[in-house]
């Protein structure tokens, strides 16, 4: 098996909380409203030698058109109806700070490039991007990981729906500045990948420029096991990075085994799949899929896949899925293959007819496909190039992440032939004052900061890490310095507030928290009462004395507990085991369990 050592590199994309990169629109839409729509067609540009980028050609073959939803944070620049304005200087600063924090050489002159992307996610058909930092590194638990570049680029439009001939995007996200940090393939394994992504992300958050929204940090994972580079695009959850890498490892190993089987059967021969129109055979098939295909004017095509029997769907061998991914990418539902047939209402006797007609031998597989007549040529060529890549074990491609931890074929990898200068934006000199400002604002390293938090506040290493990562650093410092129990503050920030948010959709602001902490100190509240008070205040909006009264109404005081318990003990109605259920039932109030147990112990002695 040609499986080599795993090589992994990452591209971490962070949205910035500044305005948009090349116009003066806001990063967020004020209203969630679609003002109007417009449509576009995109055509890949040709290189000097008449070559077309592979990924671009693939998109052209898919022949889709694009609809864009206009939101209030867009202008003619996002519509590609006006040339770009000057780069946003806050975003530029953020990218310089990031480069410095990652020990990169910062360029003195910024050149903006166009990276051709014709999947509709950019109205112009390209993404504007500039290198800001080159050649840095970060320290990790498994050694240095080199940073190849830090780039400043525009985010793409947000896909709303459509896999088929029309795709709809919202323009709200288009043009938000992104910092892209690319590492060299120095990452050792899947856990290491998560660590590196976390580190890079936390530096961004520390700088104060990272946007704190869902999906504001996205990772692309590059990996190879000697069968070509696979890029998994747009992984949003850190925890999924390791899952995707593991999935890919398994997938690639299985493909390699499947192809070994095929090779043993057919030797070094190349495989060409030749689809024939077999609509006649299936004319009155009871298969729902074929029926509705006929209704839509489709024809049924079938072809022999020589030597592939038992590799398409057989245990962990799943080449059928590899092929159907391409078919789906062209907007069809999928493909049937002999490893899974008869099924889906396709009759056995019709299959026999087809197998005979096509001359299927024992080791051959058969593909069956319902497709519009106009599309079969391009789909067939898509399937053929897929199979050619599979049997030569060139697995390089761009794959998409699925929530269940699996990945799927997205498009061919783009080549180098897709970058050319953005002629609408002149080369920009970074002024010295800006460099100085950035130098002064480089955030401390996560390690240093983590150590400092542990020392200063006596919190755990883990809490310190989460505080930094979750963007709670400044908040934590402010609150911890005004309350005697920093560990409690950490717990409230990291567990209680997320819990309240989950339940009520609301979150307390810093000012309210400070007031409640002060009240807690005065009233000598326990941790339990403090946390409840925060919850009550967040949900009900009560503050000050009103809050105090409400807390008293809802939570049992030490006196309450003592009164109830002493009677119950005398009556023999309570043991240490049922103290808490007993109390809550008897008083219909919240009980602080730690307090109740300690009271029980004290008075039952």
């Amino acid at each position: 098996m040609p499986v080599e050592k795993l090589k992994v590199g990452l591209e971490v994309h962070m949205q910035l909380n500044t305005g948009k990169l090349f116009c003066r629109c806001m990063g967020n839409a004020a209203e969630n409203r679609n003002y109007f729509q417009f449509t576009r067609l995109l055509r890949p540009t040709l290189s000097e030698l008449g070559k077309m980028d592979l990924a671009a050609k693939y998109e052209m073959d898919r022949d889709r058109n694009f609809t864009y939803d206009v939101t209030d944070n867009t202008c003619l620049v996002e519509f590609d109806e006006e040339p770009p304005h000057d780069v946003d200087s806050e975003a530029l600063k953020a990218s310089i700070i990031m480069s410095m924090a990652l020990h990169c050489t910062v360029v003195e002159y910024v050149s903006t490039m166009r990276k051709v992307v014709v999947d509709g996610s950019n109205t112009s058909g390209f993404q504007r991007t500039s290198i800001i930092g080159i050649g840095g590194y970060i320290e990790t638990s498994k050694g240095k990981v080199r940073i190849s570049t830090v780039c400043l680029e525009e985010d793409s439009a947000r896909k709303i729906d459509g896999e088929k001939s029309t795709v709809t995007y919202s323009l709200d996200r288009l043009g938000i500045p992104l910092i892209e940090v690319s590492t060299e393939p120095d990452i050792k394994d899947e856990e290491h990948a998560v660590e590196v992504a976390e580190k890079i992300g936390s530096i961004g958050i520390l700088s104060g420029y990272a946007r704190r929204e869902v999906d504001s940090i996205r990772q692309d994972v590059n990996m190879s096991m000697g069968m070509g580079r696979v890029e998994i695009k747009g992984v949003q959850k850190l925890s999924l990075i390791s899952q995707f890498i593991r999935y890919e490892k398994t997938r690639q190993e299985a493909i390699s085994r499947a192809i070994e089987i095929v090779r043993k059967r057919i030797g070094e021969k190349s495989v060409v799949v030749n689809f024939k129109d077999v609509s006649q055979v299936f004319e009155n098939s009871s298969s729902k899929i074929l029926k509705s295909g006929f209704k839509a004017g489709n024809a049924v095509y079938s072809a022999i896949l020589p030597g592939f029997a038992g590799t398409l769907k057989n245990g962990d061998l799943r080449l059928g899925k590899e092929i159907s991914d391409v078919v789906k990418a062209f907007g069809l539902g999928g493909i049937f293959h002999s490893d899974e047939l008869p099924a889906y209402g396709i009759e056995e006797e019709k299959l026999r007819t087809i197998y005979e007609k096509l001359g299927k031998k024992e080791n051959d597989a058969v593909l069956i496909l319902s497709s519009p007549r106009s599309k079969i040529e391009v789909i067939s060529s898509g399937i053929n190039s897929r199979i050619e890549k599979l049997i030569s074990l060139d697995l390089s491609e761009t794959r998409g992440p699925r929530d269940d931890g699996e990945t799927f074929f997205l498009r061919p990898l783009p080549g180098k032939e897709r970058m050319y200068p953005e002629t609408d934006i002149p080369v920009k000199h970074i002024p010295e004052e800006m460099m100085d400002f950035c130098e002064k604002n480089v955030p401390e390293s996560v390690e240093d900061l983590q150590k400092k938090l542990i020392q200063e506040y006596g919190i755990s290493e883990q809490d310190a890490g989460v505080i930094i990562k979750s963007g709670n650093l400044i908040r934590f410092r402010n609150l911890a310095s005004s309350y005697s129990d920093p560990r409690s503050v950490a717990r409230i920030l990291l567990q209680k507030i997320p819990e309240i948010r989950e339940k009520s959709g609301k979150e307390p602001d810093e000012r309210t928290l400070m007031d409640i902490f002060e009240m807690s100190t005065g009233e000598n509240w326990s941790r339990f009462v403090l946390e409840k008070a925060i919850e009550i205040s967040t949900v009900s909006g009560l503050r000050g004395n009103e809050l105090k009264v409400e807390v008293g109404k809802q939570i049992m005081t030490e006196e309450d507990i003592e009164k109830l318990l002493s009677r119950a003990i005398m009556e023999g109605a309570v043991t240490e085991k049922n103290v808490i259920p007993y109390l809550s039932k008897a008083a219909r109030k919240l009980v602080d369990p730690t307090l109740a147990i300690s009271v029980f112990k004290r008075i039952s002695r």
Partner: protein
Amino acid sequence: MLQADKPEKGDFLEVKYKSSTLRGTYIGTEKDLLTLKLENGYNVSLPVSSITILKHEGQKGQVNSGERVNTITGSGRTRITIITTGGTIASRVDYSTGAVKPVRDLEFLSSSLPGLTERFTLELSEYGEILSENMKPENWVSLGRSAKELMKKSDGIVITHGTDTMSYTSSALAFMFEKQTAPIIFVGSQRSSDRPSSDAFLNFRGAVEFSSTDFGEVGIAMHETISDDAIVLHRSVRSRKMHTSRRDAFRTIGSRPVGRFHADGVSLTPGYRKTAEETTFSHKLDSKVALVYFSPTLTPEDLENICNNRKAVVLMGTGLGHVSTDLNNSIRRLTRDGLKIMMASQCIQGSVNMNVYSTGRLLQEAGVIPLGSILPEVAYVKSMYVLANYDADDFEKIMQENLRGEIAEREISFQLNLGGQ
């Protein structure tokens, strides 16, 4: 950087820049900035003074194959000639240097327009590379002549032209052709054709479609809205570029476009001049005409200076057609000496009417010719044609006569909506 190391475009370089080592293709040096295309495709520009060249190798044998030139394509029965004037319809990008070059390969162009070659035979005729803003009346004449010649063997003429002055050039041709055997359709693009989102392809397709109809006039084919949806045909003498950058910048003023092309095909609104059995063409234009935009500080001396050596002047006045009364004496003197002074409006939309206010009546008494709804630029071009082709005595009458549809006699654009959506 050492002199001996002087690299040539396309060479491989390895340079030390601050603490980093960079490798890539040398693109060029401009204003003490050396530009390198890195292996990852990015360009970086580095100050020559802060780099050291570590390695320098000659080109790795990547010689460009010669440019493909394909001046005829398609097998359709309708023959369309495409005259290019520098407004490129297609370009290629040299990804190694980033240079954008026009494509002379019609096959490439039509390959991105499915179905075109089955219906049409397209032939390319290069007028020459000329920036739209440098087009002069002599260019209008020579372009008109080429169109007249090419019309003999073509069913339609498409002229690619920069959008900035397209209304001037196309209006000039409109006046020069009194009758024509084939449509002449100007086409341009607002997004250059090196971008995937270029409007050039669809505009071109629309132009080819319009050029195969019986529209016996000169028109402009451009986007109807900002969507890549429909292309509209504007009568050139009623059209104007109304936005600096939008792809639907061209508008028919005071009326609706003559034609529309979209997925269902071409539709034309009746009322246009049909193609004729023969062509009547005049190559005469008198360019001694000026277009003057009135502003509050325009003095009589300014006006007289501009009018010097001119035979006709179109004033762009305010509102219904007014200029400061300070200019009345000069105007009276100039018209008495034989200068033709006309009035169009800065409002662009609407018609000049110099009877409503006394200022207007006084100007008419001073000899100013009101031009109604004629667009200022069109009036300017029309006067060149009228000066060269009619008796001076008939000037006023002909200027106010609707020769080519330049006068919107009934304003039927009820919505004053310049911004579109």
